Each structure stands twice: as C-alpha cells, then as structure tokens.
C-alpha cells in the first residue's frame, strides 16, 4: 500500500531523515515510536507529501508521489489526523466532514450528509452535528477529525501523535475509535507515545531514532526483546 525507498529529508542544513526504506501492506497497522526529534512525524508527513522528500521515493497504492501533478489524487486516498486536530473552526462539525467529499469527490449534498451522520455516530458524536469545533472538548474534536478523514473513504489513515494534545482523560476515547478502525481492517500508520496502545493494536512496531529505522518487528519482540541498545534505553524511559 505504501512503499518508501531511500527516503531522505533535510530542513536546510539539518538532515532529519537519513535514508528510510519501508513498505506497509494492505490492512497492516504500523506504529512508529521513537524519541522527540527523531524524524518520525516527518516520515509520516512525507507519506502524503506534506513534506517534500529531499531524495528517494514514496509510492502510495502504486503511484509515486512527485509533486503537484498527482498529489491531490493520492491525498484523496490517504487520510491524515493531526496532533492539533486542525478542524475548520468556522464550520459546523457536519460541514467539516462534508466539505471534502463534496468539493473533491463531487458527492451530492444529501449523500455527503448521510455519510457524515453515519460517521459521527460511528465515533460516538451523533448529537454534535450542528456544534462548532471550539465548543467541543479535545477528545471530541479529534474524533470529528477522524470522521472527517474517513469521509473521503481513504485506503490508508495516517495518525500524527493523535493523543499528544489531549487531556489524559480524553486519550481513551480517541484510542477506542482508532482500535475499532484497526479491527475493521483499515491500513494505518500511527506515530504515538502511547506504548500500551502501540503494543495492543500494532501489527508492526518501528523504532525510529536519529532519522533511521533502527529496529522493527512484532510488538512482542520489540517491547520484550529489543535488539538495539538505543531501543532498550528509550523503552526503559517510556514504559
């Protein structure tokens, strides 16, 4: 589904990604962990071209991302959930979810609304259709953001630290939605600091450090028997 080869990314003089090779299979849930500044968010943002790679290729569903030419097509298939939600504050919850399906996929308003209502119910927010994002709690906003991304019926969902900006008591409700999504067979790439969740939901764990994938494997292997010293040190701090 996603295939990355020799990916490098520099911001000015600083090389954040130093050569990443990665492929994500259909229905696979890949969780990226690692210290702050290791490049894991940048890696995720390269997957829908929010960051332009300095070198190497990123392909989604067989299409190599190469800038404006095909970028919107690919992004239709790749949902993204941000740390800070990024809901559109001037629109109702319903309008937030309906906008892209109507403008990008040219779906009729009535049908877009029906889908939006179903998705809201799916994330447990059926009563909030006419609310505005600033009226909602962080957890509710993030669930709307997930519904908004799902409304495009994407093939892949990317999550960039989706619970890092939430109060602790709201983390669970967002992780629940993500867990169900994984159970429904969505292909997902998740950057998170929630180690318990990573272990439970991930099919594969990637430990990223200093711009490289240092170690990867099944959750039990990475968490129980890390091969690399850096992984051991990181896990001992966060577990």
């Amino acid at each position, binding site marked *: 589904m996603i295939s990355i080869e020799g990916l490098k990314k520099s911001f000015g003089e600083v090389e954040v990604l130093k050569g990443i090779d990665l492929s994500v299979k259909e229905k696979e849930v890949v969780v990226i962990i690692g210290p702050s500044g290791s490049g894991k968010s940048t890696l995720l943002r390269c997957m*829908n071209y*929010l960051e332009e790679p300095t070198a190497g290729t990123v392909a989604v569903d067989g299409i190599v991302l190469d800038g404006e030419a095909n970028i*919107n*097509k690919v*992004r*239709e298939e*790749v*949902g*993204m959930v*941000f740390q*800070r939600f*990024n*809901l*559109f*504050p*001037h629109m109702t919850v319903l309008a937030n979810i309906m*906008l*892209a399906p109507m*403008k*990008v*996929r040219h779906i009729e308003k009535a049908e877009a609304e029906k889908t939006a209502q179903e998705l809201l119910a799916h994330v447990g927010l059926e009563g909030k259709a006419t*609310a*505005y994002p*600033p*009226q909602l709690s962080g957890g509710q906003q993030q669930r709307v953001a997930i519904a*908004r*991304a799902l409304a*495009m019926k994407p093939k892949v969902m990317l999550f960039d630290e989706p619970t890092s900006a939430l109060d602790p008591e709201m983390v669970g409700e967002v992780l629940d939605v993500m867990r169900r999504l994984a159970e429904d067979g969505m292909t997902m790439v998740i950057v998170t600091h929630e180690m318990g969740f990573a272990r439970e939901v991930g099919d594969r764990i990637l430990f990223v450090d200093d711009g490289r994938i240092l170690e990867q494997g099944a959750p039990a292997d990475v968490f129980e028997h890390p091969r690399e010293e850096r992984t051991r040190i990181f896990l001992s701090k966060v577990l």
Partner: protein
Amino acid sequence: MNFNLDLMISSFPLLLLGAGITIKITVLSVALGMVIGLFVGIARISNIRIFRAASAVYIDFFRGTPLLVQIFLVYFALPVVTGQRVDPFVAAIGACGINSGAYVAEIFRAGIQSIDEGQMEAGRSLGMTWGQTMRYIIVPQAFKRVIPPLGNEFIALLKDSSLVSVIGFEELTRRGQLIIAKTYGSLEIWISVAIIYLVMTLTISRFVAYLERRFRADDKH
C-alpha cells in the same frame, strides 16, 4: 468675528448632495479596492514567482506614491497616452480603488498569514487544491480577522476621496469650495464640511465595531 448661522443652514442641502457623491465614490472605490486587494494579496503569497513579483510591484508603487499624483496620472496623463478623455467619475473611482487595493492587499495578506498553517495542511490532506482550501477554509477565516483594519481603510478612503475635488469632481469638499467662492463664508462652510465628514466616519466606525462584536460572538457560539 461674524458667524452666519443662516448661511450654514441654507448651504446644508447642497453640501449633503456633495456628501452623497462622496459616499458613492467611497463605496464604489472600496468595492473595487477589495476585489483588487483580495487577488493581489493572495498573489503576494502564491507559490508562483511571477505573481509574487507583480503584486509586490503593484503594492510598492501605489503605496509609495501620493494618491493625488495617482489621480493626476489617471485624469491628465493617461489621456495623453490613449488620446481619449477620461470621465472624471471613472478617474475618481479608478484612482481611489486602485490605490486602496494596494493597502487592502497587505491587509488580506497579513490576515491570511495569521491563519494557522494546520488549516492549509488539513485542507490539502483531504485532497483539496490550494485554491479550494484558500476559498473555503483560509479566506473566510481571514476575512473575520481583517474586519477592523478594513474598517480603518474604509474611513481613510472616505477622507482621501476629498482629493478628487482637484479634478473638478463635485463631492463634499468641492461643493464646499464652490459655495465659499460665492458666499465667502469660509468659517461656516468648512465647519459644516468637517461635521458632515465626521458624522460619516463615525457611522462607519460604529458599524465596523458592531460587525466585529457580531463575529466575535460568532466565534464563541
């Protein structure tokens, strides 16, 4: 000192006619300026280099030269080039609107840049184009934020429209001059003119304050 209240009262209807024309010039110039300003402001931050350069030149030129000179350029200099007389009304609206467009462009640019980058990223991530995201996400939010500076620009333009009196256009200031030419009532007439301008600018600033309150309430919901 001899203050002639009767002159003030009797000339008032004529001055009000001039004020009507001032309002007409201002409203049309603001409308023109907003359209120009929106496009030039967006061009200023576009990814396309030629757009950025052209809008920078536009803004620099029209903010960097006096409106009075711009009015002369349109009314007196342009006909030399084209060989055609420019209607004073067209010249007035054209010069004021083009001038205002440069200021409004900077207002919109700042407003757009004040919107969190995550909004553009969210729109683009959903597959929307840059233009769609601007239109549906960024500009509507930026618009609310720029209402106060746009109000200031509206007021400034209303006052600056007095400059078109130099091309013989009979707006409020010019009416005042014409009445004084006949009656020699400088004191009474200029006081009347000032009061009428003041009433108009205060009305605008109250209206802008009302809009600002309404949109702020809107944000809280």
